[in-house]
């Protein structure tokens, strides 16, 4: 399927915060309560429309465990957007945000758009991190903030699409060098041949063309 731009995203955050579930909800519109632990980096893709232009989002879903950090770090390079996810019911995941942010800023390009996501907003009764705290953190570090629920799909679309909008605006402003693929943005061809998926993208079906690039 042809697209005007391809944006590469990376989803980062502590283990168990719901990164894979967010991706599954976004690409496949479903929720799996019992999800296998991500043991490396998996990916999904979906086509969206911004300003009348078809934009393909290629999303890298990383493992949150410390042990996988060396593997996942190499995927920061060449990402135009990052979703930094924490779990509103586990304060420690919020406390680790600074480390994640430092890591992301150190290994990615400086223009990368980072969105802070407080996931599991449906579990309000078990909330340990207030929405205001998330907002304050985002304000302090210049991030966009949103609370989502991969279970109910609340704000999931918005999180991915708003990030894409921000990247798109940056492209319009000329902040991104779109000719350098290291920035995580690729200008599309008019007719990209449809390619079968790489392994691991099997879940990203439906209306989504899960083919790579």
């Amino acid at each position, binding site marked *: 399927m042809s697209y005007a731009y391809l944006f590469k995203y990376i989803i980062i955050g502590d*283990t*168990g915060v719901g990164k894979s579930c967010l991706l599954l909800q976004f690409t496949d519109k479903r929720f799996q309560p019992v999800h*296998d*632990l991500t*043991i*490396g*980096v*998996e*990916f999904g893709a979906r086509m969206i429309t911004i300003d009348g232009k078809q934009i393909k989002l290629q999303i890298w879903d990383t*493992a949150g*465990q410390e*042990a*996988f950090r*060396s*593997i996942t770090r*190499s*995927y920061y390079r*060449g990402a135009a957007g990052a979703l930094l996810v924490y779990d509103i019911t586990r304060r*420690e995941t919020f406390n680790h945000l600074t480390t994640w942010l430092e890591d992301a800023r150190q290994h990615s390009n400086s223009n990368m758009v980072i969105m802070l996501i407080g996931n599991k907003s449906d579990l309000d009764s078990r909330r340990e991190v207030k929405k205001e705290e998330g907002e304050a953190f985002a304000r302090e570090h210049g991030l966009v903030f949103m609370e989502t629920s991969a279970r109910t799909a609340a704000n999931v679309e918005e999180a991915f699409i708003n990030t894409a909008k921000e990247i798109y605006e940056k492209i319009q402003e000329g902040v991104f060098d779109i000719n350098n693929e290291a920035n995580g943005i690729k200008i599309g061809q008019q007719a990209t*041949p449809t*390619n*079968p998926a*790489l*392994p*691991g*993208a*099997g879940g990203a079906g439906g209306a989504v063309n899960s083919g*790579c*690039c």
Partner: protein
Amino acid sequence: MMSFLEWKNVEIFDLVALSSIQLNVQNTEITAQCCNLIKSENGKPNIKFVLCSKSGMVYVFMENGVKSRQISLKCPDGHQPIKLCCITTTNILAVLSQNDNYAICICIYDLNQTKKEEHPLCLSTINLLATSIATVFEISFIGIEKLFALGVGFEKGDILLYFGSINRDLSLNMRRHTIASSPINGIQFSICDQQNEMKACNVFVTSVDVIYCIQLNDKNIIDSKMVLDSNHNMANQCCTLSQPAVSDSFLVVGRDDAIYCFRRDCRGPCYAFEGHKQFLSWIDNYLLVVVKTNFGSAITVVDIDNKLILLHKRISTVIDCVSSNKLYYFITKDDNSKNVCKFNVHELKEYPTNIKVKTLIAKCMHNNALMMLKKDESQYQYDNAILRLKYGNNLLLKGFYARAVTEYAQTIGILKPYQIISKLLSSRHNDNLIQYVKKLLESKITTFDHQKLLDICSDRQRLRSRIGELWIIRNDTTHIIDFKQISNRSINLSDVNHTVNNFQGVDFHNADEEDIFNFFLEYGREVLSVDSTIVLNTLKSLVKSHKIKNILRFLMIFPDYSELNVNLLSYYIENYSPGDEKLLYYLFSLHLGLWQENKISAEDITNLVKKMPIRFEKILTLSKTYLFAIGIENCKTSEESENISEDDKSFLRCLDQHIKKNPNLASLLTIGPRSLLTILQKVCAGSDIKIKDCKPFLSEKFMKNIMDAKCELGSIGDLNCEIAIHNSLESHYKLNPIEFRNKYCDVCRQSLHMPSIYYLCQHSFHKDCVRTNYDTKIYDDVGCGLCGTVLEYPKLDDEQLDLITKSCDIMKGVSSIFATGIHSL
């Protein structure tokens, strides 16, 4: 580090040892080997195993499942040992030798052209100069035109590439390219999308630290070169190409920490899996990984899409892994043989589909089983249907009725419908049965009976709605509520409200008290549950119009609505029967009941007492019955005690005096209501209190002490037992300590944090994970949810028990002293 070995294990492959391969030559040092595997026309594998010796000889061992033969050949550059060799599935063998000056000689043979012991036909010989040691050698036929591709990688990072047809002198068109700065260790060819007339191929080249994708045209010129990844910390160990020789194939590279996927223009996913990767290969959509370990090799087959481990076995060190047409052979050195040229062969065997499906069903993975059968649906049509039936049954059990019917519907035409109809006969599956039979009627196999069944189902559906209507017509709200609760699991309040509205319109003018009573007996409670004001007002108006004379029996209709009763009775007493002691007595007891339910305060009772024209001793007796002790206190200390009659005052004074003289009696007021009432009666009657009246108090007290002592002795016994059990448990764990090293929760696989539960079976969980996943009360002594192990106390013999209980038993000492004290009493 965790790896994909954490995924679900479903063994659908096995390793089978085949007969070993032995060369006729004894104890020759082997410098290179390669083999190919072709499924011959008779279905048996045709294997060609090539071994190159240090002496420059090449031995080809051929076996076609029926007979085996062996040929040997010597290269033109025969004095140099063969360094690298490669064979294609079309039986083209290429061998490479290199001299001390790095000059290389490549010979290409067509093994199809060998007859008996003849030397095979040499298609081409290439002699070229190089600057470093050759490290990797790859040949392949790609594309529809089966163009020949050859690549040699060198230690200094340069490669020799050829892409075109095979001719006598390939060296004229072969070109050298400097690609990397580190040794090349992998070359893979795949076809390129042809956008013009020019033929081209993609060449994935892996050096130790960088992965490249090169586009090579048939003029042997590099059109483009792209760096896919560079990692200087972790060396690339081996690589393979998915679906070789097609345009969208992707490269899989093994590193020590993980397996990484790459497409020709971007990175793919990666999967953590530690270990030195010896071989990587694809079996359809499954990835085969051979990892070198301390004890040999570990072979793992993994289904990456579905996250399943299909095989994980260890064998002795694999020296080569051959694959073709779904046949996978692992060649290992026979360490037990003295002949160094003897090799063991293991075949990777996929279980037959029926066993695979059975295994998957046993693990409740019906979806995967269906996907497996889908590959060859026509062949397994019946099995597919059976599987769908089982899947449907499984879904039905789990309560996914609609999905179950969808699965059942797909068996129509293959399975007999009664197998499914029999499962859906229950009335709660009526809708599902209708759904299934409708699908059945759309098919060609339908019979008249199916139509009849659908009619019956529809009748049953209609019957249900008719029953509902019938209840509404009867205006029987109780049953409407029940019925609705059963059918809809919610109370349909609109129907009850309808009844209430009707109730308001009921005309009691011509009804006598009996009719009114019966009416309220039948409908009162339901209406009351919706609106108590209507009932109260109606009853008050009936009292007012003298339709109700015996108010007490109306009160009995609503025993649970004390407030309504109090209201109604107060109204009745106030207006029509102010002095009726019986009613006042009842009203007071109702108030006390409300006080017990904390609906009114003690003060309200006190105020009521002051107003009530009933005898004070009756009030006291009733108060005592309802344990309303505070009422007496209030009466005694109330500033408005002047309002209390003289008789009552003298009674209170008398009570005070008695208590002052005999302070011990004060405590008696809290026990033995019967004895107390006796003594109160005496006090009220003004007669003397004799010693025999106090006897029950004393005996009660005495009996109570005896009972308490007995209870305590029993408790001590129980405590001793418990202490003994805990001691034995403690000593057991002192002798056999258990170390809890678990870092991860066995449910969610995340690092443990408090609150967590550690079971003796070494499983550990987050408290929340246990609660949400196993639906158990965590404070119960239940076993581990994962393995079902119930904590068992080790049983000790009496001697051990005695020993344990004698030692360090402070509690027992304390309790025995306590018990002795009670005995002496």
